């Protein structure tokens, strides 16, 4: 078992985006305590999303209410085309919404400028995509340190933290490899390392096991679970695989652009 990168207190983090208030608001309550809006890292209400691209508009999200507590590991499940990916993209701020409100870590996404959103993603969010989506020109460690460098962390510290994160996912010996020379499971573990290296408030994962064989998929879920438990890292995982869903704290089911109650 590898050691996890040190972070003195995972519930106390310093935000570099000028909203230190929220971040310094004392130790968060343990999961399972009574819910307050403070505990909610994701709080979405009546989210609507309409796609206009095709010939007929598609109501992808039709008023979704959704909340995630700090340190929670949540799975979103549902049949293909029900709007899971859309919801994830909207929650993470890489797609816009047409109605409702999304508050992440106390900050309403709709009121943030593109620049602020970009900075927020760089410092407080991690992403794991179904098709790994590593930057092919960078080595594993460079891929992992990339978000740190974007967030203006010094190069030495960035390298050190990236190597630690790679070690955490068990790939310290592959640090110098380009993605093309890694297996799918390894690539996805690098992607996970990249997602957690900034110590983000929340990590979004869209079908992280979708492109993996079952053994690699199980390994990856173990890793995510471990990170969640050891560091209190919040995960929101979209999946349609039951085995994945069963490993999480809570499953949210979707159908036709709505959350099933």
């Amino acid at each position, binding site marked *: 078992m590898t050691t996890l990168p040190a972070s003195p207190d995972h519930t106390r983090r310093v935000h570099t985006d000028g909203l230190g208030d929220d971040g310094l608001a004392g130790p968060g309550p343990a999961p399972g305590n009574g819910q307050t809006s403070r505990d909610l890292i994701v709080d979405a209400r009546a989210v609507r999303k309409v*796609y206009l691209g095709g010939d007929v508009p598609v109501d992808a999200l039709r008023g979704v209410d959704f909340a995630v507590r700090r340190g929670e590991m949540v799975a979103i499940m549902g049949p293909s085309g029900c709007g899971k990916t859309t919801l994830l*993209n909207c929650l993470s701020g890489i797609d816009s919404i047409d109605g409702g409100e999304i508050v992440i870590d106390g900050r309403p996404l709709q009121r943030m400028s593109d620049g602020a959103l970009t*900075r927020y*993603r760089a*410092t407080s969010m991690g992403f794991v995509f179904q098709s790994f989506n590593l930057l092919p*020109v960078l080595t594993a460690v460079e891929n992992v340190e990339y978000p740190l*460098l*974007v967030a203006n962390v010094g*190069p030495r510290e960035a390298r050190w933290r990236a190597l630690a994160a790679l070690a955490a996912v068990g790939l310290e010996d592959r640090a110098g490899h380009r993605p093309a020379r890694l297996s799918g499971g390894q690539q996805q573990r690098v992607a996970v390392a990249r997602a957690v290296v900034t110590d983000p408030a929340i990590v979004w994962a869209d079908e992280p096991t979708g492109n993996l064989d079952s053994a690699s998929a199980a390994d990856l879920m173990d890793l995510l679970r471990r990170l969640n438990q050891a560091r209190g890292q919040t995960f929101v995982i979209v999946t349609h695989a039951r085995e994945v869903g069963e490993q999480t704290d809570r499953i949210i089911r979707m159908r036709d652009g709505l959350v099933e109650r």
Partner: protein
Amino acid sequence: MDTFFGIPTGTLALGALFAAGAALGVLALRAWRWPVFLRLGLRQLPRRPAQTALIVAGLMLSTALVTASLATGDTITHAIRAAAVTELGRLDQVVTYSAPAGSQQGAPPGAGGDPFASSTFFPGEVFARVARGIEADAALRLDVEGATPAIWLGCTVLDLTSRQTATASVRGLPPEYPPVFGALVDLEGRALSLAALQPGEVVVNEAARGALAVQPGDDLSCTLEGVPVRWRVAAVAAARGLGAGAGVSLFLPLAQLQRVLSSEPTAGAVDAVNQIWIANRGDAISGAARSERVVEAIRPLLVDAGALQDVRQLLTRADLRAALAARRGSLSERTQGRLAELLEIADRPPPPATGDSRGGALSREGRDLDRLLRIQSLRAALLAGARDTRDAELVRTLGTALQRATGYQVLAVKRQVLEIADRAGNVITTIFLLFSLLSIAAGLLLVFLIFSLLAAARRSELGIARALGTGRGHLIAMFTFEGVAYALLAAAVGVPAGLGISRVLLALLIWAVESGAFGFSGVAARVADTVTWYAAPRSAALAASLGLLLTIVTVTVAAWQVSRVTIVTAIRDLPDPPSRPHGVLAWGWTGLFPGGATLIALGLRWGQTFPFAAGVSLLLLGCGVAVSVVGDRLPARGDWRKGGAPRPRWGARAGATLAGMALAAYWALPFDAQERLGLPRLASGIEIFGLAGVLMVVGTTWALSANGDLALRLASWSLTAAGRPAPALRLAAAHLLRQPFRTGVTTTMFALVVFMLTVMQVITAAAVHFQADAVIKYGGWDLRGHVTATAGQGPETGPPERPVPVDGAPEGAPLAAPESPAAPATAQAQPPATQAAADQHLAETVVAAIADSADLQRYVAAAGVRTAAFFAVTQLSAPAPTWGGYVVAAIDEGFARGNLIPLQTRARGYATDQAVWEALAADPSLAVIDANALPSPQLRGGINLSTLSFTLQGIDDRQTAMEPVPVWIGNSNGGAARKVSIVGVIDRRVATAFRGVYVAPEVLRGLGTPLRPATSRLFFRLQPGADVNEARAALGAAFFAQGLQTESLMERFQNESGPLILASRMLQLFVGLGLFVGVAALGVISTRAAVERRQEIGILRAIGLSRRRVTVSLLLESALVVVLGSVIGITLGLVLCRNVFAVQFFDRFQQGLKMVVPWQELLLTVLLTCAAALVATWLPARQASRIPPIAAIREA
């Protein structure tokens, strides 16, 4: 290339260099601040070496093309200049002196009464003064390398040994003259010293060997300034250094020449000279750049301040003032202004007299006076005013004072020669300019295409980077780093490659000339000798920095576009949803209207086409956008990104169609259309044609690509209707439609390349057709000659006349080195009519003698005489008949029978041109006129420079048959008027060499004595196979007594037309280069298409599509683009050519150029281009078809 859009190339290069440097600096700063993004950007290069190589090759190609065209333009300009200055060598300025009116020296004042018409001798002491002045002036010493006193006289030289006659210049120099003027070396390369010459010995140059068949030891005879002289040839100097040049020159020590001349009392002091030569620092060409400063500095050394003072005094006289005031009205506006300025200076209180009246510093007023009094029209006005006072004493004193004040002149001869050469070379450099502009446009499109494809390829990665929190600025930087890396590589390879290409092309051409391949048959052989490859550093700098700058700008725009990716769709590589343009874009377009209006106003104000037309284009663009906005409340914006067709919206379609068509139509308008609408004439250069071409092509493809779906649907519908379902075609069409932007840019590029091919070929064909060949141009004659009635009767009998060109107009010699302008005119006064009549008679006896001599008949097949003089001509049938000056030429029977001058129009009733000529010689009521007399509309307020002001109305350039047109010929010098009927018009191509109204000899005789004496020229056609030089020598010897001199018209043709023909061939080679750009574009596109569609192709293959079908479908895509581009390119190219030729744009360089469409060559080149393009597509297509179905699907 000297200017682009009126901006000097040097300035432009500096600006571009500076801008590129600044851009690189900004990028370097960013790279330093954001090393990750630099790394990310640069890492892309080695990742896909093949793609990197393709991109660099594409970018390189455009840089190389621009470099090569600039360098070739330089080479040709340089060659023309170098040829022009050979005669002068390092001689930059000449100081001469004009004799005062009525002095014994020099020519008597001409009819105009200007006493400054010819230069005369002055004391050698003046040189000492100039030399001291140069020595004393440190700044001047930096400009001047050397100066020497000299005598330079023209004369007709007889070689008594070889019995040949030639016009020559005699130059006397101090033996220790500064080395800058070039050494004399003999044919073996040994130095020849003037000091070593015995009295009575001269050195002749190599040119004399050809013209006089001279050998060392020959006896020469000539009459110099009225002094009969005999010399012995000591040595022949090689055509290098002082001995260079095509004219015959004799060299001897200055002191000896002075001694020879001083035996004649009129020559003045023994140390008299007639010139001071001044050479500037630099080389033979660049030295001229210092001329202005040198002339400014030398002039005050030569001004007689006391004489200026006298003039000033005289100008205050009341009677002269009154007379001048009375004359004012008859003066031109400019002269009036200058006169006012002059009188104002004269009225100022005189400055305190200084001790030293000459040399040294002139006061500012003195300089102003000097400057004004040098203006001939002003001097003429003053003298005329003085004559009006009827005070003979005033006329005399004013004349003398003016003379003394401004008698010395510093002539910037080198600069004048270069200016003439540049004007002559302009047609070529202008065409190259057009070519460079078009290639820049094509190159820009290629760069643009490459980077938008690259952006498409990078899209998903950039999406991920955005998701991970990369800001837009970072993204732009990252993509720009990558692009600039390509650009730097491309510039580093492209500039040397371009220089190399132009070098190779030139070498190829010279090889072709020398080996006689491609129909050169030695035509330009002499030019090839003088043309050396030359590229101005500023051209290389301009090409490199322009390439870099264009790439940086393009890549930044492309980066900005990608940075706006919708992250979600980019990651999944889906098409972007339609988005409302926001911010600047949403309303920015409304700025097109005021912007356009402002430009139009500026254009009208400045009288320039460029801003005007740009303004109109902006307005048209604005209208298009407005239509599309109103149409669907969304500005037109083709969705060029990968993936999906934009939904056709009628507003966007209507807007693009409207604006595109209007743009194309506006630029396709004839260039004089605006004038017909009553707008003022606007000035423009050839750049406007380049711009017109680009905008026509862009407009057309824009309109077409907005409606491409309709066209393709129509095509596939008609194919289906014809019972041939063509799945491959439908697939190809679908792909093209899916990316209208990419399709549009590719088509535009290809169309532009074909457009360029078309325009260049038409212009070249016109030039080549015009130059025809020596046979046509010189009417079938091989030699032209003249006799001198007094020449051969021995040197003692009197001064020979130096032949003066008759025709009044420049003898169609745009590219020939002008005859040494520094040689003073020494035409001696002769009783004009008698001399001319004697010459004519003599010429006729020569022709008669040839007919009787079996010996000469071995060489000469035909001989004739053409005697020309200047008369007034009028056409009563013209709408507003006036008398205009024109050359009237009488031809004898020999000329009429022997010439092959083609007629472009001939009167009905004559079966052949020959019949017209023979009828003319026999019938004094007939005449033939040259085509230059036909009215020729000029592009922009062309001015008729020539004194040949008669124009013949009612006959069109294109008509071949005519009714006889009666005209009257009159003599303003007294004498009767004669009526003749014009029954033929000489072909434009020949017209310049044979200007005039051609009549029978008795018509000319009946007209009486012309103002200027008539001149007779002999023309000879040689027997087939006869050697030109042998024939010349035989004729010269046979008619030595008549002083017969001949020149080879073939040689003249080579000098005149060689460079143009050479340049035309060069252009044709070049056009082939442009072809590569179009081909490269298609190659890039197809490669990209093959990569993009791996998966799709895999699926198609899995479904069962054969490899061949896959290849065909990809090829079809290119074929559609190629066919569309070719049709657009050829059509618009011909439209532009028609417009260019309709306004006779090239008339300012070469009159009579006619549009010729070389259909065969044109179709051949276009077919070749298409074939090459398809080959370029075929390679990636074939590779794509080899994709194994499984692999392609798995990879996704």
